[in-house]
Structure formats: C-alpha cells, structure tokens
C-alpha cells in the first residue's frame, strides 16, 4: 500500500489535491473538512509521513487558529451567547463558530498541500514535467527553484564546517544560533552566487536547458487508470464547486 501511494504519478497526486481542496472549500461544511483532514493524516500514516505531516500542519495551523480567534471570536459584535469573558473582551459563540469555520477551510488547504509536498518526490516531479509536452524551460525553472534550497543548505553546512574548524560559530543555545546565522549569511550568499555562476557555464555546455527535443533516463510510472483519474478529478474540481455554488432552480 505504501509503495502504491508513493509511486503514484506526481500529476495524479496534484490533480487529486486540487479536486479535494476545491470541493471541500466549496461545500464548506465542517464534517467534510474534518473528514478530509482525517483522511490526509491517514494517507500520511500509510506512507510513513504521519509525524512530519502532523508537526508541520500543527506549526502552521496553531498560530492561524489563534489569530482567527482574535479577529473573529473576540471582536465579534453579534448577539449570540457569550462563552467566556475577561473584563471588556468576551468570546461569543457566533464569533467562535466563524473562526472555526475559517480555520477548517485553511486547514484543508494546508494539510492537503503539505501532504502533496511529502508524497511527491522532487526528482520525479521534475522528470514528469520534462517528459510531458511542456516546454523544456518549465522543467528548468522548476528544477532551479526546487533544488536551490537543498543546495544552499549543503553550502551552508560546508561553510559551517569550515568555520567550526576555526572554532567560530560553535556556541550553544539561542545566542550560538544567532551568532552562526550572522557568520554564515554573507559567505553563504556570496558563495552561492559564485557557485551558481561557475556551474551555469557547464550546465549550458551540457545543453541545459534543452532547446528542443529532450529525454529522461528516469522513468515516471503512469497508467491508463491514472490518466483517467486525473481528467475526472480536474473536471470534477470545476463542475462540483459550480454545482454547489451556482443556485439552480429557486433563486433568479
């Protein structure tokens, strides 16, 4: 099962994600949103990424939820019953409901997005785009954005090692962290620029980005069923929200 999920074509994962977010947002009912989130966590668990998914979503959603409660819950001026009050500020039931609803909507987007990020292999995604009829520049752009961060992390690790060899930036705790940040920032930027420059001429010499026909050694498994699923998912992510949102019959 785990292999099935992680070996899905990246485009299939993306199409299903678009479909899920579109329907859940359009429907905007709490149980559907909750069901989607639970399902995502379950898929994450099967793929062995549950802990990472939960941690990342938590890190994004907690501050979001708090700020939504502050904006809608506390400042709400409706006449619904008060749940809790601290002096002049009070949390009303209506306000809390609005905040929860908005938070759930955001949560669906966040959890589905993160799950996509965890399920899709960067290299597979780039290969899928290279193998698709998209222009070669698309794969080039995506590759340079996706791999920029890991490359910079590697670079900053190398600089960190070089500095550690000179006993600089080895402090502990927050102060040490800040010191490392200060010491590494400038060399990181300068050497990343230098590195990109040095590599770019060899990339160009090796014909990258390709100007015409190009191929990939890497295979991205696909199937008739997955192609079908993608089309249906994309179609439904337009039709279902339209059906929900466009009033039929009744209102003029």
């Amino acid at each position, binding site marked *: 099962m785990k292999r099935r999920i992680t070996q899905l074509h990246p485009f299939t994962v993306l199409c299903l994600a678009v479909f899920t977010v579109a329907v859940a947002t359009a429907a905007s009912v709490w149980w559907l949103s909750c069901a989607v989130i639970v399902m995502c966590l379950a898929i994450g668990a099967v793929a062995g990424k549950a802990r990472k998914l939960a941690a990342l979503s938590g890190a994004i959603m907690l501050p979001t939820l708090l700020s939504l409660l502050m904006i809608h819950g506390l400042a709400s001026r409706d006449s619904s019953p008060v749940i809790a009050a601290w002096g002049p500020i009070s949390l009303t039931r209506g306000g809390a409901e609005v905040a929860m609803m908005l938070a759930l909507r955001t949560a669906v987007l966040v959890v589905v997005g993160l799950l996509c990020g965890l399920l899709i292999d960067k*290299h597979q995604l*780039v290969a899928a785009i*290279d193998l698709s009829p998209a222009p070669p520049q698309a794969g080039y752009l995506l*590759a*340079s954005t996706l*791999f920029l961060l890991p*490359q910079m992390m*590697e670079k900053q690790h*190398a*600089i960190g*090692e*070089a*500095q*550690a*060899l*000179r*006993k*600089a930036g080895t402090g502990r705790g927050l102060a040490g962290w800040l010191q490392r940040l200060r010491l590494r920032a400038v*060399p990181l930027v*300068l*050497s990343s620029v*230098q590195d990109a420059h*040095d*590599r770019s*001429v*060899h*990339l*160009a*010499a*090796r*014909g*990258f*980005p*390709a*100007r*015409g*026909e*190009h*191929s*990939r*050694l*890497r*295979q991205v498994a696909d199937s008739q069923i997955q192609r079908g699923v993608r089309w249906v998912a994309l179609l439904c992510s337009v039709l279902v929200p339209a059906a929900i949102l466009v009033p039929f019959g009744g209102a003029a």
Partner: protein
Amino acid sequence: MMDMEHRAPVESTSALHLRLGSFRYADADHDTLRAIELELSPGSLTVISGDSGSGKSTFGGVLAGMLPRQGADSCEGTFILAGQRIDYSPEHSPRIDVAGWARHLGLLPQDAGLYLSRIRQTVAEELVFARENEGMPRKEMTELITEFSTRLSLEHLLERDPSKLSGGQERLVALTALSAANPSIIVLDEPLAGLDSTATATVTAMITRLRAAGTALVVLTRTTEAWEAEAETLLTLADGTLRPATRTARTAASSSKPSGFAAAAASEKPLLAFAGVQLGYKGASAPVISDLDLEVRAGECVGLAGANGTGKTTLLKAAAGLLKPIAGKLRVTAESGMLLQNPSDQLFERTVTREIAFGLPKKGLQRARVPRILEQLGLASCAQTHPYELPASARRLVALATVLVREPRLLLLDEPTEALDPAGLQILNEVIDSVLERGGAVLFSSHDERFIARTAHRVHRMPRQ
C-alpha cells in the same frame, strides 16, 4: 554556432586549429595568454604543462569557448573548429553558443565537482545528463551507462547521490559523464589529481580507447611525468605562450624525511587515538569505516593511504571533530587544525588577509602572527587578493595558512599535495617539520606514494571495502 557573419566553412583535416594573438582578463593589466598556435588532429594526445598560475585553466576556458566572457575580457585570434571559422578581435567577440561548441569540444574543469549538474539524483542520471538534453532515447542511454560504467568500474556508484561522493569519485564521475557526451575533442584539466592508482590506470586506458576512436585529447597538467610515454606533443605554457617541452627526467625530490622524532615519541601519550571506531554518514546503508584503531603521538607524522572512497577524508573529519563516531572511542587531546581536500570549501572571505584572520580575537598573539604566516607561506604579495582569484597552488596555501595561524598541535591534512607546485611543496614540507619540531603531530592523506614515503614516519593503509 555563432553569428552568421562570422560563419564560414573551412576545409581542414585537423579537429581544431587555433591561432591566439592575445587574451586578457577584464581588469588585468597584462595579457594572460599571447602568441599561441595550436593544431589538434583526430586521435592525438597533446599534453600542456605549466606551473600553477601559468594560465593553463585560462587556456582551457578559451579552448572550450567559455572565455572570453562577452563584453568583459579582450581576445584576439582565430579558431577553426569542426570546419567553422571563428574570429575574435578586441573590438568584437562573437557570441558563442556554448552548447553547440561543447558538442565538438568538451572541458573537464580543474574543480571537477563544478562539472556535475547537482540537479540529478543519481550518478547514472548524471552520466547521461548531456545526452538527455540532446533527446537520446532511453534505451541507448542505458546502454551507454552500462558501457562506460563497466569501462571505468563505476558500477557500485551508479545509484549514489552525486553530491555525496568522495573527491576522487567525483572526478571520475565527471570524467565519465564528459566522455559519455562524446565530443570530438576533450580537454582535461588535471584529470589525475586525487585519483588512486587503480583509477589512474582506468582513466589512462580510457584515454587510449578514446584516441583510438578518433577523439583528440588535450591534457593540462602541472607535471608531465605520467604522460610522457603516451603523448605525441608535449608543450609547456610559460609567460603566456606555448613552447615545445623537452622530455626531462623529473626534478629530483628535494626534501628529506623528517628527522628522527618518531623514535623519541614512542613513549609520549597519543594526541589522537581511535579505538574500535566506526564512522559513517546519515542515510548511508553501511558505515564507511569500522573497527578503526589508530594512534598518533606527538612528534609523529602519519600518512593515510588507500583507494578512492575508502574513508580517508571521513577519518580526518572525525579527528577534527566534524563527524561523530557511530561507535567506539575517539580521543583527541590536543588542539587540532585541518586542511580540507578542496580548499574552496574552506575559503569564504573577501581577501587573503581577512581569510586568515577570520575568527581570531581582535587583539592578541594570533592576530599578530598573520603577517608572519603570510611571509612564511610566500603569500605576502597577494595579501589583498580575493582567494578565489588565486591559482590553485596559492589557494591551497591560503587554506593552509588559515589553519597554521592557530598553531595547532595536531595538524590534519587532506590531500595536501594536490595542485601544489614545487615551491608550494617545499613550503608544505617546512610546515610539517615545524609542527613536528614544536612537539606536535601530523596526520595526512595522500595518493602520492612518493610524497608519503618521503614524509611519513608510518603509513596507515585504509582497508578496501
């Protein structure tokens, strides 16, 4: 390949004919190259030697069409490559299509890691990267990979991440990728640096094969020794121009073995002790080194020898505290300093002086030592230069200076002789002697058996996995 106006078919049997009047870097005050004439015929091997800083890498860049940079450097000369004529003049340098040029002439840079794309996950993909961009069908690419990886004994690396290779493995992979692109002329900048004896033999064999298939090869190197038997043309680059080289007996080894500290040291407590140590990297399937027992005592100079990828760098990094052992006991009882295998990984400041003074307390003994270190390593004249603009030999000495300024008692050197010129080698020997005299110890890795025999009291051979 270039602007239409500069395109003119020329009949010629040679793969390349070059007449270079002059080449000057953008803000330099003299020509780096001048009055060079070179003709390459298919299947030939041309070896160009020259001291560090003589302009070999610049010449490589010019051959590969990467220099002059448009609108910056100035160049005067004429190329005839693959039947096309390209004219450079100080007023006008034609726009070069680097990819089109590289199909005829490929260059392996001195820092071979730069050749790797860093956007492919496995070595196998890296090997056919250029072919992918040409649109070669998958089946042919698979055959190509099998052919080349067998020829260069790279099979065990095919599924590895190209960014996590040892120095020698990286060079070998880059070299293979370049040959797999199959240009008709291949220019190699120091192709044997950091390769073990097996890899050296495989690369030499492959060069013979490529020549038999009609590829013209140019090797840029500091010492011609390894090439004299094979090469049909031996040239030296000096004062910016090419001259025929005389086949010389190699310069005699200048240095003697460090004097007999080792015997006296036997009783001393070890400065560095590995006991049953296991070392490895996160995410790798097996540890790189297991059951390592090694002691280095004060006054001792120990050499590390072993094939590419057997863990010499890994061992040294652990000794320097950059890598924690997975198991076993590692004890370091003295201040250590380490010279990394690739000096570019060690240098990040804007001038040589700043680089050496980095991280030293503003006022203090160590900072006062900076001018003396510069003097000692022969770097006084480039104190204000950007380390990146220095020739390879000087760059390695700068990296060495950043270590020495702290006067470590335990000096760790990873391939210190790579890229060093004779003067640099002399300095390195003096540095090692002075550390030993101070009562310190030296542990170094090298592929240069002669240097090991000359310098080390004792050799630790890394077991092959």
